[in-house]
């Protein structure tokens, strides 16, 4: 079993084998412990000054602290259903993220998490028209202007239909 876990960590298992093993890790606490210990060993070898202990727990905590921004306001009932659905999706995804995280514990992992989460986050509020001046001021110094020319200024004056 330990040999298999080690092979999985090295990415040497076939996809179906890996899936079976991951399944087992999730169900069987002893296997799960082995899995964590192997990662701890790997971490210590790679970066002794920075050791993660039970990363999955911390990731779960961080995910729970994340704000869930829901917008636009005003459609309360629909929103609620959506919120429930989304949080269900989010928790499923959290499991996925944890599994994925364990697969590749690297210094960039935390920052990649940021990207994963932003994908999960429900659409945030629309930028208010009164903030257009910030967008305009930003656009002037953004390198996107060098490539796109003036077309990217459309962002600074774009309107939304539910503005009125």
């Amino acid at each position, binding site marked *: 079993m330990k040999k298999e876990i080690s092979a999985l960590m090295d990415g040497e298992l076939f996809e179906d084998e890996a899936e079976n093993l991951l399944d087992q890790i999730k169900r069987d606490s002893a296997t799960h412990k082995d899995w964590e210990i192997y990662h701890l060993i790997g971490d210590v070898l790679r970066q002794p000054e920075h050791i993660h202990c039970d990363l999955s727990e911390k990731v779960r905590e961080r995910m729970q602290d994340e704000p869930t*921004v829901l917008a636009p306001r005003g459609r309360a009932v629909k929103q609620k259903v959506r919120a429930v659905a989304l949080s269900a999706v989010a928790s499923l995804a959290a499991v996925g993220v944890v599994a994925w995280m364990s697969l590749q514990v690297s210094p*960039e992992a935390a*920052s*990649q998490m*940021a*990207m*994963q*989460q*932003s*994908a999960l*986050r429900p*659409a*945030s*509020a*629309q*930028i*208010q028209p009164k*903030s257009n*001046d*910030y*967008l*305009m*001021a*930003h656009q*002037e*110094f*953004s*390198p*996107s202007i*060098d*490539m*796109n*020319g*003036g*077309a*990217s*200024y*459309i*962002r*600074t*004056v*774009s*309107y*939304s*239909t539910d503005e009125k």
Partner: protein
Amino acid sequence: MRVCVALCGLLLVAANTYAGERQISLDWLKTVAFAAHQTDYSGVFVYQYDNHVETSRIIHVVEPDSEYEKLESLDGPKREIIRHHGQIWCYINHKMVQVDSQQVHGRFPSLLPEQLSALSSNYLIKEAGMERVAGYPTQVIMFQPKDGLRYAYKIWAHTDSGLLLKAAVLGDKKQVIEQYAFTQLQIGGNIDRSWVGAKDFAGHGAGLPVSPETAMGGTVINSGWVVDALPAGFKKTREIQRPMRGKHAPVTQIVFSDGLSAISIFIEPADGDEDDVDGLSSRGAVNLYHKVLDKHLITAVGEVPPRMVMQVLDSVRYNGK
């Protein structure tokens, strides 16, 4: 031994091919940037994000003194922007208002060498085939971030002129965050210049107004505000104190860039009625995050994932006297 030499040779050839390919991509970027400023064109493009789609017309002409550009919305309420040599006018409350005037060095801006090197250290640039856009043949170029911190970009550049005919910002799952695409475009030839003419521009009689509020532009300063958790690859490109329309006091703006995307931090005195501004909002690839800190209203804006504007803003602090 002979095998080893052959292997080394092979590696060298591979490395050269790779470097060559990268050089071609960088050359493309220079062409695209050059074309954006130095081509006469007029066309209609579509801008799309989430379930929002709108159509606009853009006219860009090059005159001996500099470039002139007019962008007008074709859908929804009338919106119009005119740009000329660092000066910007915008259609607000039924009239054209000057919203900014910044010092521009040189007649035409161009990609700086440091920008190109930042770009290639943060993104993998590669050519991704040929496609047809708005009736023109284009070269597709991908900018794949080397980490998961930033968006990916995909651009379609006209093979002859280098003009950008389509551009998309992609998330980590390759989903489109926002995109622009020309649907009709005329490159060169007889393009309407009736709106240009020196007479119509600021300081030459009638035409576009000069606003004393914004006319002095920005001045370079060292504000004392710092960002502790700047994402990898981002460097400060500007720190200015500038007037801003509708603000009583000058606003400090600090700009950070990774060569392709940028984050601006705005710092201004809080005037007490900012209760409603806290939080995150977005428009296409641009995310905006506000926060009040030590009696200052701080705003982060950038074409980067929401998490990144939040991270940057949350690490802003005053380090001055």
